[in-house]
């Protein structure tokens, strides 16, 4: 016998086990509720995926393969838990495998299955996975979906590489901290709270880092929750695992992070602050997961000796790297300079040491100057 309470009106029921995993309408308030497989004791407090993780050893470290074995994830009806995939990597580049050609139909199906809302294993109306779309067959399907599971969350990055969106699932009681306006959609079990996280100091620091003062807290209050995040520009999303170390993020790159990670603005003195586009950085430290986005594709590069990147193209880099913002004279356009604070022309970031840099394949400045020609002109 299953003993449950309606989450909306708390009316209690005792039901036969055969109703496990199904849905019913509460006779008290008329709302739909799912009947969990086990009695009230909350089995969703920890991610069911803990087990595969424990078997694999230390959490979510770089296993350089993404598995497109979506077929294994089907069918949703049999498991009461969200679909779990093998861990994925923080290196989109190394994970790129040329299987897109053969995979699309299955991928299409699996994608849709993965949208099974958490906690509703009973299937959905019109559950048959969208055959008509397969009939129309799409060639040149998006690059494969990046999936992963960590201590804190499960994520899935899709619509890559140009319009990447991240779907994150967290168990009840857990939180996510995100950049404002990053949320695309979420289940009603998630509660959103805006806040000046980290106190005034860190908050002000973030202001200088070009990110908003506010960091939003998403809490899965009423049950396990799911949120989707996306950036504003066309580009990709990358995932990085912090293990007590830190990551520096360029302005605008920060999206969201799990618990255990602190994000603050790094005031590296007026030097970087004023060098035009320069380097205005956010610092993320702690132990946990962080996601950041880019304008353009993301290329992770492992630096061993030295490396130079135009400042507009830097997305993020590990703290183990030393960096210096300098001018590369040949890059500066000669001639009239309209304002005394030029927009970062000819500035490069010189990295030294060992660590990883994430570089993006487009930069804002170029887009703006290109677009500027098409803006309506103000008449004097």
């Amino acid at each position, binding site marked *: 016998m299953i003993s449950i309470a309606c989450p909306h009106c708390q009316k209690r029921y005792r039901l036969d086990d055969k109703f496990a995993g199904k*849905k019913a309408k509460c006779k008290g308030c008329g*709302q*739909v509720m799912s009947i969990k497989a086990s009695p009230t004791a909350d089995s969703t407090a920890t991610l069911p995926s803990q087990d595969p993780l424990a078997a694999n050893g230390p959490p979510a470290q770089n296993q350089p393969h993404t598995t497109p074995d979506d077929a294994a994830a089907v069918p949703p009806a049999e498991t009461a838990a969200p679909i779990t995939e093998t861990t994925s990597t923080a290196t989109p580049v190394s994970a790129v495998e040329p299987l897109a050609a053969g995979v699309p139909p299955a991928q299409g199906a699996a*994608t849709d299955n993965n*949208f099974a*809302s958490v906690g*509703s294993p009973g299937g*959905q*109306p*019109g*559950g048959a996975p*969208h055959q*008509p*779309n397969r*009939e*129309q*067959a*799409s*060639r*040149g*399907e*998006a690059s494969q979906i990046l999936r992963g599971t960590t201590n804190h969350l499960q994520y899935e990055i*899709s*619509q890559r*590489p*140009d*319009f*990447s*969106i991240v779907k994150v699932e967290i168990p009840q009681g857990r939180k996510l901290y995100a*950049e*404002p*306006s*990053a*949320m*695309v*959609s*979420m*289940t*009603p079990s*998630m*509660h*959103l*709270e*805006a*806040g000046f996280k980290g106190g005034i100091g860190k908050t002000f620091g973030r202001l200088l880092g*070009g990110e*908003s003062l*506010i960091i*939003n807290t998403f809490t899965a209050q009423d049950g396990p929750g799911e949120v989707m995040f*996306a*950036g*504003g*520009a*066309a580009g990709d999303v990358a995932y990085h695992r912090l293990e007590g170390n830190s990551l520096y993020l360029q302005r*605008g790159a920060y999206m969201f992070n799990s618990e255990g990670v602190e994000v603050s603005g790094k005031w590296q003195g007026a030097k970087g602050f004023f060098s035009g586009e320069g380097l205005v950085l956010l610092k993320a430290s702690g132990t946990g997961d962080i996601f950041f986005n880019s304008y353009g594709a993301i290329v992770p590069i492992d630096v061993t000796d030295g490396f130079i990147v135009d400042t507009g193209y830097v997305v993020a880099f590990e703290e183990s790297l030393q960096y210096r913002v300098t001018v590369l004279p040949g890059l500066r356009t000669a001639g009239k300079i309209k304002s005394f604070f030029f927009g970062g022309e000819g500035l490069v970031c010189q990295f030294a040491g060992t660590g990883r840099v994430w570089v993006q394949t487009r930069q*804002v*400045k170029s*887009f*703006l100057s290109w*677009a500027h020609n098409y803006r309506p002109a103000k008449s004097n």
Partner: protein
Amino acid sequence: MQAEIHDRPSFANIRVHLEPGEEIVAEADAMASMSSSIEMKTQWSGGFVNGILKRLFGGESMFVNRFSTPSGGDIVLTQAFPGDIQCLELNGNTMFLQPGAFIACESGVKLGLGWAGLRMFIAREGLFRLKVSGKGRIWFGAYGGIFQREIDSEYIVDTGHLVAYEPTIGIRVAMAGGLFSSFFSGEGLVTRVSGPGRIYMQSRSFDGLAAWTNSHLY
């Protein structure tokens, strides 16, 4: 008629092959290229008045093109912005589309313009919406990648990210959080959708792009 969507999700386009006697109806601007054996007839989209209304409020052009061929031919259809295209097969049911999303449909599909209601206006989905019904396939697109979701109970979508939805979907505009949180979170208002039914969402929004661009200008 064979139709395939290529180069998803960033620069999606539809490659159509028509046999003699087959017909496809498309937005006036959608045609990128076509074989010389294809004939094109332009007409008001749903009639004169409807056409004008669709233009003014629906973001669609006043005209649609009917493509047919006496001997067989190919057409490539696109949209104005980078993004994804989806195909949907209607079987007597109805679907509501964001203005400007419509690209093409088979001749058995009826296109109409509907009043979306103030709710949708606040939700930044426009005052009007396109209503498609009948039997046949319809192709629509959006800025960003398009993905669908079956809604059973309730779901929350950021304003500006909803591309299409069934009439069975209930829509309410709500605050993202408490009063303080809604304003300061940067999310403002959100759309609460309730099922049963299906919604199509886009992974980017023009508002988001504008905000991002603006944040780098001064």
